[in-house]
């Protein structure tokens, strides 16, 4: 490919021609194709948050309870007695739409790696799901597959799935939402960071070998979901909870033994994004030899090695002088361990292939995607719906029938057929199980502390009024925690929206973020992290239709005395009922 056509083909790397020009200007030369692809991946919405990050400035992120705010693999809060909880939520919407079982399974795997990369032992998972028409065969196929995938992965790795939500609405018919939240427990002193540390440190690759799976997934999950994703079919990543369990035990053991200076999982945009981010946090350059990356298939080329999203892989940076100890520990768990590079005294991201430098780009450039802000405009159709005059609607005669209709709607009906397929008790800490209340409660063994968690969002409300709807999601989460007896501490969010270039969608995103921020300020629950999933839309006729805006809120709270938890069943005996609030 000549340089002239590289610019023409910028879109295939996920870059606009304007972005390509910015790249050329900033490095003072034409990039090669590998460099363009790496920049494309790092500047994608998934890694670079180019459309969303500017909005996040309004989030409150601090508080005495916050041990780690946004910017790391997961946020961490203090729950007392020297313990912290790491927690985060992440989406796997587009992979689940293509292959629900593996899409959802790898979603669980990815979020769990984010948690144990913080040095925390995962101890609970919640899944927040959105599907289309419950009667349609496609919904049944997706729902069954997603639940299979989550249970397959979570049950096998031995982390209980303790709660979630399942909501049906036609706007998700083609584009389901699969948001998974995980919580992990750690001692304060074991808190690990995703950094390269200092000059001279080794960069260690550990876990599964690299294959061609999920290739370009970072770009894929930020692009429209359309007929093209049929052609993307080989881009399916297969999860292996058994391998992840080994990786989890080995990583935690290494962190607790003080052998690890930095750690991060390889998620979206694989090897590149994890090592780029770690270098950025350290403010240093690195150099890696791609020939040393363990491969599962023959003939893999640098582009594939860099961007593959093969699952169950991590980057570890050993504490200097403890390299051998770390190798030995990892070998006991039968994991592939390879030194693929080192931290160097410059500011560049350098990759070597067959002895040649094939990528040499400033670390800052990769991690500082161009940011876009727009002025959102509310869609007039939605204004009309919100302001519709309801006074003309007749009160139904038979309210009893309305009640039974409501109760039998799949969104409201019992979710037992779902949560019974999840092991919600493994680890023997689950005090309040799914179905017993609107939030789950886990005890912290050896203490009197309980940790409560919930995930919430009513997308119809957000659709009609994104500011109030998103604020209401935070408030609902806080009420759910209060109802089990917990004090809310902090939130993570998962912003599932349509195409941000659509000004109506951008408006929803802007308003929802402000709503979350204001509610979190009022409730003193800072935002410790989150995830953004844009381009959730589908083609209807010749139109692209966005899903209902869905800012899922994951909230964590604490009960100093877990024995004081409350459930929602009406106890036997004569009791009075009170209504609180307006």
């Amino acid at each position, binding site marked *: 490919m000549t340089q002239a056509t590289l610019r023409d083909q910028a879109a295939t790397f996920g870059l606009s021609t304007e972005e390509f020009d910015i790249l050329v200007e900033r490095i003072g030369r034409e990039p090669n194709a590998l460099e363009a692809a790496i920049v494309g991946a790092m500047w994608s919405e998934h890694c670079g948050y180019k459309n969303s990050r500017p909005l996040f400035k309004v989030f409150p992120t601090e508080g005495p309870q916050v041990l780690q705010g946004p910017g790391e693999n997961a946020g961490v809060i203090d729950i007392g007695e020297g313990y912290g909880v790491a927690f985060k939520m992440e989406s796997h919407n587009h992979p689940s739409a293509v292959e629900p079982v593996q899409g959802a399974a790898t979603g669980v795997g990815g979020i769990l790696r984010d948690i144990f990369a913080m040095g925390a032992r995962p101890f609970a998972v919640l899944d927040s799901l959105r599907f289309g028409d419950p009667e349609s065969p496609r919904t049944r196929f997706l729902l069954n597959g997603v639940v299979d995938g989550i249970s397959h992965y979570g049950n096998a790795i031995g982390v209980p799935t303790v709660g979630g939500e399942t909501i049906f609405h036609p706007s998700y018919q083609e584009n389901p939402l699969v948001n998974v939240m995980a919580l992990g427990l750690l001692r304060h002193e074991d808190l690990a960071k995703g950094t390269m540390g200092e000059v001279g440190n080794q960069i260690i690759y550990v876990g599964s070998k690299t294959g*061609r799976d999920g290739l370009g997934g970072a770009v894929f999950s930020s692009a429209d979901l359309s007929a093209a994703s049929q052609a993307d079919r*080989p881009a399916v990543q297969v999860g292996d909870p058994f391998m992840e369990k080994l990786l989890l035990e080995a990583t935690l053991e290494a962190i607790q033994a003080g052998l690890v200076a930095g750690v991060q999982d390889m998620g979206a945009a694989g090897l590149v994004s994890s090592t780029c981010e770690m270098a950025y946090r350290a403010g240093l350059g690195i150099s890696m030899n791609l020939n040393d990356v363990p491969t*599962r298939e023959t003939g893999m080329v640098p582009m594939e090695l860099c961007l593959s999203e093969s699952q169950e892989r991590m980057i570890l940076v050993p504490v200097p002088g403890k390299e051998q100890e770390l190798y030995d520990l990892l070998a006991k768990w039968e994991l592939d361990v390879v030194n693929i590079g080192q931290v160097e005294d410059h500011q560049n991201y350098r990759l070597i292939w067959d002895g040649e430098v094939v990528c040499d780009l400033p670390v800052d450039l990769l991690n500082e995607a161009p940011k876009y802000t727009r002025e959102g405009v509310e869609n007039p159709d939605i204004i009309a719906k919100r302001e519709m005059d309801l006074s003309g609607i007749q009160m139904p005669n038979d309210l009893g029938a309305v009640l039974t209709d409501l109760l039998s709607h799949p969104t409201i009906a019992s979710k037992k057929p779902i949560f019974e397929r999840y092991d919600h008790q493994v680890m023997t800490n689950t005090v309040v199980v799914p179905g017993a209340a609107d939030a789950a409660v886990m005890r912290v063994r050896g203490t009197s502390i309980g940790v409560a968690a919930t995930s919430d969002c009513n997308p119809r409300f957000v659709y009609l009024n994104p500011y109030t709807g998103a604020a209401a999601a935070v408030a609902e989460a806080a009420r759910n925690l209060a109802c089990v007896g917990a004090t809310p501490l902090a939130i993570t969010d998962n912003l599932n929206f349509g195409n941000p270039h659509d000004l109506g969608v951008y408006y929803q995103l802007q308003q929802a973020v402000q709503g979350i921020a204001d509610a979190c300020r009022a409730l003193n629950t800072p935002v410790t992290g989150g995830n953004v999933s844009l381009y959730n839309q589908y083609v209807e006729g010749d139109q692209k239709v966005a899903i209902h805006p869905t800012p899922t809120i994951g909230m964590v709270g604490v009960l100093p005395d877990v024995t004081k938890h409350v459930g929602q069943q009406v106890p036997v005996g004569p009791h009075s009922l009170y209504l609180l609030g307006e």
Partner: protein
Amino acid sequence: MPQYNAKVYVTLKPSILDPQGRTVERALSHLGQSNVSGVRVGKYIELQLTGERGDVEAQLKDMAENVLSNPIMEDVKWEVEEAAQ
């Protein structure tokens, strides 16, 4: 109407990770079978069909490719033969 026995073999595409095959291979090597490699675990489905040969063959192809296997991840082969009466 004639009856046919069909056999369908479903395997993961070569580029797709086969965690099961990998685990079995490692386990075999721990059991001392270190000359074993390339273990891949797939599905083997047997079924019967009634109908005319041509129809049955077309139907089997369709079922094998669209129901019994997942074209995103799997390859599929099949055989059909008339059942002994």
